[in-house]
């Protein structure tokens, strides 16, 4: 993306705001969708959360201080929206978010927008058994290939702690895949 400061100024100026926001949508709709889908698993839920995420990005752009990258800031909003969504859904179904994750993975087999093979499904099951933070770190590192430094800006966690989380997650997943 072009010089970020110039782009942010375009996003804030009433005359250029619309064009700049359409550009932002085109650029980030796929990566943010993938990020949200990896958390909420279901397409319809991911669609809802993604739309709300972009609406919030638009609303809060004026408050964006530029302390972090626009990319990290948007990912932070998307992550918060997705986790809030999962927690609310768990509360609605009178269950924990971990139990809900397992249930969502079980539903993947019948999901018309999931075409994973047996190994892919098993990996999803292994991930669902991890603590929430390890799940998030694993998905962002393994599926989305986000660098630790960027992940640190998004999640507000030190690079060292993220690396430790990832290695714990990898160990547990490999044990699950080999043991079952």
């Amino acid at each position: 993306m072009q010089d970020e400061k110039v782009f942010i100024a375009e996003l804030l100026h009433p005359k250029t705001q619309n064009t700049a926001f359409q550009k932002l949508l085109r650029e980030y709709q796929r990566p943010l969708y993938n990020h949200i889908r990896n958390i909420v698993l279901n397409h319809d839920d991911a669609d809802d959360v993604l739309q709300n995420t972009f609406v919030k990005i638009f609303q809060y752009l004026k408050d964006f201080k530029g302390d972090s990258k626009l990319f990290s800031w948007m990912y932070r909003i998307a992550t918060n929206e997705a986790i809030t969504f999962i927690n609310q859904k768990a509360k609605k179904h009178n269950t924990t978010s971990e139990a809900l994750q397992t249930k969502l993975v079980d539903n993947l087999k019948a999901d018309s927008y999931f075409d994973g093979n047996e190994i892919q499904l098993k990996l999803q099951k292994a991930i669902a058994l991890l603590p929430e933070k390890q799940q998030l770190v694993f998905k962002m590192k393994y599926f989305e290939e986000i660098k630790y430094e960027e992940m640190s800006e998004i999640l507000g966690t030190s690079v060292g702690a993220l690396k430790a989380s990832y290695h714990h997650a990898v160990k547990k997943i490999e044990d699950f895949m080999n043991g079952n």
Partner: protein
Amino acid sequence: MKNFTLDNKPKIKPGFTVPENYFATLSEKINDKLPKEAPKVITFYRRKKVWIYSFAAVVVVSLSVLLVQQFNTQPSLDSEFLENYISQNTSVSQDDIIELLEQEDIEKLKVDYNIEEDLIEETLINSSDLEHYLTN
């Protein structure tokens, strides 16, 4: 499954798909959800208020014009009339005026005729009437 490792290539993908044309129509859906600036609504009362203010302004301007014209039509005093009036109706004597003047002002009032004595004598000789006026 034995000896599974996540370092194996290629990586395992999440396995998710999206409906056809999902991303092509997404921006339109999001744009519809964006908060729009509410158009400014001018209420009937506000319109009425504007008319009241406009009418009041017209009245004030009209009155001002009339008043200015009224002042301008009053007869102006000409300076000759004023001078005569003062000289006839004033109780201020010449001495009072001199008292009010500074020494410097009095000096300025003095007229130096600078007439030569020979010229006066000659003039007096040539015009007998003048001698008559002077002596009487």
